[in-house]
């Protein structure tokens, strides 16, 4: 009898916990929703932001970027707007898992404010209602510095942005090799085949679905069959496969000369990167256009390393900052993002991290232009003009997994 009573009590306590937890959460969410208005006058938002601590979640494996956020962005926010920025290193998969966990548990205030995001992750986060918006066009610096008509500010991997994220930095695929080891820089896929034949076993690329490996394969596809047809292609396996068949044929023809005869591929771009640094591979590829400069400075690459592009263009993308739907400090998040997209911050990002700026050069004042013009891109790198001139758009997000699947079936070990 006594035992049953205890059991009953335990259940009762837990269910009240669960119920109040849930109910309280909804109330709070409703209140928050009522309180925060992204369309309010910016001075009101500035006032609301004052004194809050805003969290910024994103990948933490780049110590230079971590340092830039901690020592350049955060102090500026504190000084100018009395906003404290807390950087939280977390992979995007875990960020999304956390957000959906918080959503499952009820609309209670979350812990994540700003998120570094793009592509497929943005697609799934927005589709699942995990993001707050629209907010981007409401930012004064967005109006002032950003070209809203730029396709990369309209769509992220072919998926409409609709103000749910603001641009953060531009990336572009580059190929990398060491002029001391191989004098040639293949300008297209035909030259790449010659290159691979000349240095058998010294070239490979990361196995898909690695981010960089996947982008490299898309670049090969673009060079062989062009990119225009993919922009509105249906994400249907048969259609995609028919369109990329010549490229698949080409990739299979590379296999016999690749590292390990193309029977296996390194599992990640970090592995390929380390193999290149060790001289085990002669060709490397990166989605960070200035990674050569950065790695030469760090002493990881030899000073003779350089980056180069295909003549038909290399895929570029933009990464963005979004705000979580359950963000506890939306006003402060908007203030922080507004600061990050300012000409000043973009210039420090360009000079410290060599990340391509997202501001529209033609919208800058002369003084602001000088901030960018004075940046020395360093050894082995290409100029911003050269990169942007040969920039082609990313494929729509929903085609990416289809291509990855086809690659697994049709290329590996064939």
């Amino acid at each position, binding site marked *: 009898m006594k035992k049953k009573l205890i059991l009953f009590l335990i259940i009762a306590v837990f269910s009240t916990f669960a119920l109040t937890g*849930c109910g309280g959460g909804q109330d709070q969410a409703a209140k928050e929703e009522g309180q925060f208005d992204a369309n309010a006058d910016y001075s009101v938002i500035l006032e609301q932001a004052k004194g809050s601590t805003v969290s910024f979640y994103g990948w933490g494996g780049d110590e230079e970027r971590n340092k830039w956020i*901690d*020592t350049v962005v955060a102090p500026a926010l504190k000084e100018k707007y009395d906003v404290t920025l807390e950087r939280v290193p977390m992979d995007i998969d875990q960020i999304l*898992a956390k957000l959906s966990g*918080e959503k499952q548990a009820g609309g209670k205030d979350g812990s994540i404010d700003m998120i570094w995001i793009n592509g497929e992750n943005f697609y799934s986060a927005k589709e699942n209602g995990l993001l707050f918006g629209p907010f981007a066009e409401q930012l004064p610096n967005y109006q002032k510095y950003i070209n809203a008509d730029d396709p990369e500010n309209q769509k992220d991997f072919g998926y409409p942005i609709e103000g749910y994220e603001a641009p953060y930095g531009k990336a572009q695929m580059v190929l990398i090799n060491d002029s001391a080891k191989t004098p040639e820089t293949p300008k297209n896929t035909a030259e790449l085949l010659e290159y691979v034949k000349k240095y058998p076993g010294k070239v490979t690329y990361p196995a898909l679905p690695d981010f960089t490996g996947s982008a490299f394969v898309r670049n090969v596809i673009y060079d062989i069959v062009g990119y225009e047809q993919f922009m509105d292609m249906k994400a249907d396996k048969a259609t995609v496969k028919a369109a990329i068949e010549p490229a698949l044929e080409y990739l299979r023809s590379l296999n016999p000369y690749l590292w390990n005869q193309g029977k296996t591929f390194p599992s990640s771009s970090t592995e390929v990167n380390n193999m290149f640094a060790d001289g085990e591979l002669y060709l490397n590829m990166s989605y960070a256009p200035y990674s050569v400069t950065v790695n030469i400075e*760090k002493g990881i690459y030899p000073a003779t390393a350089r980056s180069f592009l295909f003549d038909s263009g290399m895929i570029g993308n933009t990464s963005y900052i979004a705000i979580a739907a359950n963000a506890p400090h939306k006003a402060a998040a908007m203030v922080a993002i507004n600061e990050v997209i300012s000409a000043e911050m973009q210039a420090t990002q360009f000079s410290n991290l060599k990340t391509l700026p997202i501001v529209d050069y033609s919208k800058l004042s002369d003084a602001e232009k000088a901030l960018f013009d004075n940046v020395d891109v360093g050894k082995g790198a290409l100029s911003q003009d050269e990169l942007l001139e040969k920039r082609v758009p990313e494929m729509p997000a929903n085609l990416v997994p289809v291509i990855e699947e086809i690659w697994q079936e049709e290329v590996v070990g064939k």
Partner: protein
Amino acid sequence: MDRKKHRILNIVAYTAVLSILVPLLVLPFWSFVGRWPWPGLLPENFTLRGMEELFSGATNVLPVLTSSIALSLTVAVLAAVIGMMTARALVFYDFRGKELISFATVLPIIVPGTAFAMGVHVVFIYLGLADTVLGVILVHLIYALPYTINIMTDVTAMIGNSLEVQGQVLGVSPARSFYHVTLPLIMPGMISSASMAYIISFSQYFLTLMIGGGKVKTLSVVMVPFIQGGDRTIAAAYASVFVLSTLLVFVLLEILVRKYTARLSGI
């Protein structure tokens, strides 16, 4: 024949020790290396990048390390004590559902980690434990307990309670009898289970990140992105700190406990 066997054993033992020690010794070395291409015997250049990351103002590792050690020590002590008490209950008493509880103690390591973490996360959000240090301690405990309970069950069963009961027969209170007779006997088991729990807590990445929400920063949370990112210099620097601090904690723990037990059994 015997000598030959001895020699083979020695070779096996030394190979085992070397294959553990050499990679460990390479770690601190790599934290100063910039580039070390094959087949060079020595690196091409050296860098202080790793040390800058560890000790420069912006990303000082010391506060994170201290709080990380404090957190894991808390988990270790709690796990050892709870493990000991659970083991005593399971070994010395008979009650309804004993088999079930005994099985339930190993459940957390049977259920796949990711699924487990998601479930715990949702429950912890309800209870207001997500993103708190207490939540992280609790979730580490859940993962450490299966090991400590198992270790302590064996130790308790081996030592039994006859000596403790004898003490009581001689007129000492149960508490004192436990404290002066049983505790010194099971101390080695307590130390191994605490060490085990410490290691489990200290190296926990995914669970800490999930439940701590990135707000609870431990050394693993800061270190793993660099390992995943393939930056060998910085990863090696962090890993060296990880290994050295763990060793240090274990040595200190061992010394403290030895002193304590010596005093206890001396009465």
